[in-house]
């Protein structure tokens, strides 16, 4: 489903005009034929829900285990999203050895994954006995990425820009930073500002392209769809009128407006090469180092950012309440909202779903099963380790659902 919906939307997988694939002998007649008349591509959410329903209804046996080599596992999936979003991550290393370099983002994602108990394959493999809920793999992976970015960059509208400025100062002066920090004098540092500018420009272009593709999408197949003889007569008449007017305008417009057929691809952006050349969206930043945001502290590589923010918790009835993103959004930092929107666009889901997934990951990281009434969580950090302190005495529970 990860890029399945996108392939359907781009027309690489027959769905809208699937009836054209039926053999000649099979004739679609009667009102039931309308099942083949498609005018909407279902949303991510509805497909997920229906899949979940089918799973229970059909009582399917356990799915093959999702190990770290499978593409559905968060580790490789995060790497894919990193690459698509032009974030630093060394593909070769991660794929084969799973011992990425110390300065790559993917390593931090894996650390977080361990912390949230999400590295284990059993929590991703669907089994009606132990794990009946179908996980939304793409949402989980994107949420992990976002939380990692939050840890490293703060994403509170201040820290990330401050770090960028600091980097720039040190870079231009080529001065070694304070003791116990890593030495550098290369210009191969990842800069949040540079990345943001690049990706924002590409995102705007991609959004416009998507909007245009929606406007130009052709929903009617080559063969006219009809359910009975009378319907056929009117349908053919309408088709003739539509076609002749279309021909007229095709002649008048210099280029016929067709949906750009770039070939099926599971990646949304194309990074590498100069801006605009070979259809690329901009220079690739995958090789850059995160030295600007991490430091060596008592032998451990630590993020320089010590702060982490979380939206306020409140008591909720999970059965009646849906997402609170709509109310919370104006209070959230803009960088965070932008990052949510970026990944929401890449996954073609609504931003609130991604937000809920992020909250879920954070819950798993902090060891809280579900939002409970009146609970306050304070977070303290100490030299690369995370500690939890609660106001009420509670057993430490593993967040395995």
């Amino acid at each position, binding site marked *: 489903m990860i890029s399945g919906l996108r392939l359907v939307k781009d027309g690489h997988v027959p769905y809208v005009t699937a009836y054209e694939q039926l053999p000649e002998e099979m004739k679609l007649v009667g*009102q039931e034929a309308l099942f083949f008349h498609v005018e909407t591509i279902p949303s991510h959410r*509805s497909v997920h829900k229906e899949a979940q329903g089918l799973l229970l209804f059909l009582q399917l046996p356990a799915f093959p285990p999702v190990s770290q080599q499978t593409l559905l596992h968060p580790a490789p999936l995060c790497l894919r999203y990193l690459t698509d979003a032009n974030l630093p991550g060394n593909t070769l290393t991660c794929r084969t050895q799973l011992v990425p370099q110390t300065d790559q983002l993917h390593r931090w994602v894996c650390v977080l994954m361990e912390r949230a108990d999400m590295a284990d394959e059993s929590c991703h493999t669907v089994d009606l006995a132990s794990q009946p809920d179908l996980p939304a793999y793409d949402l989980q992976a994107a949420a992990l990425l976002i939380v990692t970015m939050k840890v490293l960059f703060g994403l509170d509208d201040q820290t990330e820009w401050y770090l960028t400025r600091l980097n720039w100062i040190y870079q231009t002066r080529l001065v070694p930073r304070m003791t116990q920090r890593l030495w550098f004098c290369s210009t191969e540092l990842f800069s949040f500002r540079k990345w943001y500018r690049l990706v924002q420009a590409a995102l705007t272009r991609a959004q416009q392209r998507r909007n*245009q593709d929606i406007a130009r999408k052709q*929903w009617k197949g080559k063969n006219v769809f009809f359910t009975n003889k009378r319907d056929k007569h009117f349908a053919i008449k309408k088709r003739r009128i*539509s076609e002749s007017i279309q021909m007229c*305008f095709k002649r008048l417009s210099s280029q016929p407006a067709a949906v750009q057929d770039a070939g099926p691809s599971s990646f949304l952006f194309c990074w590498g090469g100069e801006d605009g050349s070979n259809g690329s969206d901009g220079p690739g930043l995958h090789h850059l180092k995160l030295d600007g945001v991490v430091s060596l502290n008592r032998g451990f590589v630590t993020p320089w950012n010590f702060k982490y923010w979380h939206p306020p918790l409140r008591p909720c009835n999970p059965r009646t309440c849906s997402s609170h993103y709509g109310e919370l959004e104006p209070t959230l930092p803009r960088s965070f909202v932008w990052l949510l929107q970026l990944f929401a666009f890449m996954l073609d889901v609504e931003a609130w779903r991604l937000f809920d997934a992020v909250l879920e990951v954070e819950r798993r990281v902090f060891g809280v099963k579900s939002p409970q009434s009146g609970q306050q969580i304070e977070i303290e950090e100490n030299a690369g380790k995370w500690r939890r302190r609660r106001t009420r005495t509670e057993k430490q529970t593993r967040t395995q659902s």
Partner: protein
Amino acid sequence: MDALDELLGPPVDLEDESDSSDNSSRKRHKSKLPLAKPLCAEGQTESGFHKTCRTCLEHIREAMLHHRWQEAAEYMVSYTQVLEDRNKGRALPNKELIWRISTEILHHLSHSTVKDYNIIYERMKHSGVKHYLMICLEHSFHLMLHGQIEGAKQQLSVAESWRHGKVSSSQHQRHKLIQAYRSLLDYMIWCDKKSTLSTNNFVFDSDNQAMHTYFRHASVNLQDILKNPGIWDPFILCYVEMLEFYGDNEEALKVLNDYAYDNSFPPNPNAQVYVYQFLKRHNAPEKKLIKVLRNLQILVPSHELMLEYSYLLLQSEKTSDTEKALGVLLEMLDFACWRSNLDVWTCLKAVTHQLLLREDGEMTVCKHMTLRKDWWPALHFTSFHAEKDREESSKLLEVKASLAEILCPGRALKYTADEMPT
């Protein structure tokens, strides 16, 4: 979801597609498959197809508003699929959209040809019933504008003979319009023939015959049209011109009088003007002219013919007419458009002088000015007006100044013919 809606939804209006005399209700064919409850009911949200059409239309609108006609044409290529929408409620508005947008884009594209227009018009005409007559009319206008009179006429003839089911009131009105414009086209062809006749030295009988045929066609239709209440100004002028050419002045006058004085017709000052112009052309007696202009004066006191009216009244022998002339002129000058007109003021001067020669002249003038003496000084006789009139014409200044005291006695007016101290 749309498929299920179509299966289960209420029967929709099919008037556009089917014969309107078919009033039998459609039988609902029950589906044989058991329908499962939809797992994910997304409510009455827009379908992907409708979203595409809506987005495309927005792009087209943006492009048209910014005069990017090429871009609009490109989007139109993708928009035509909206005609195949199975939702019958949207069929009529969609057709109208396509028709109007296409013609608008064609107007502005430099390389559009008559052939393109013909394709659009023909296709959209036959796409449904409701718009047929309007599109025919527009098509013929377009051909007329491009000088293809015969083609336009042919379009209208076809439209005239077209009938579909019961004729609704709006269709009836359009039929009338089509009839009227067809007669207009007959008249234009007649005019063409007349001008060729007058240039040729030899007049063939057949040419005369042809001309007469067109005249007959046009007059029959126009007579029919003119029975209906309405504003038919261009058509009546054509008719009268044709009748005058053939010397049938009585009929022409009758037609004009009917048009002007029939109470069922909406009040139309132009009608009186046409009668007056006709009578003047045919040297009618002054009494008749005065009678026509009197009606016009009631309708439009500030009409330009009022000047002629006052001249006529001045020249007549009846004493009461002079007083009437005064009334007419004063009413004219109530309107700002005549304020600086020398002719009006000169005429007024002549009238007042004639009146003042009589005994009760002053009283008559007073009587007419009672209603006006409060606001006329501000309207005509301030020092500002004096300056302006001096710039425009010294004669005007003189005439007005002489009248100032007569019309507004006892008021200290700053309107004088003397130079103001600068």
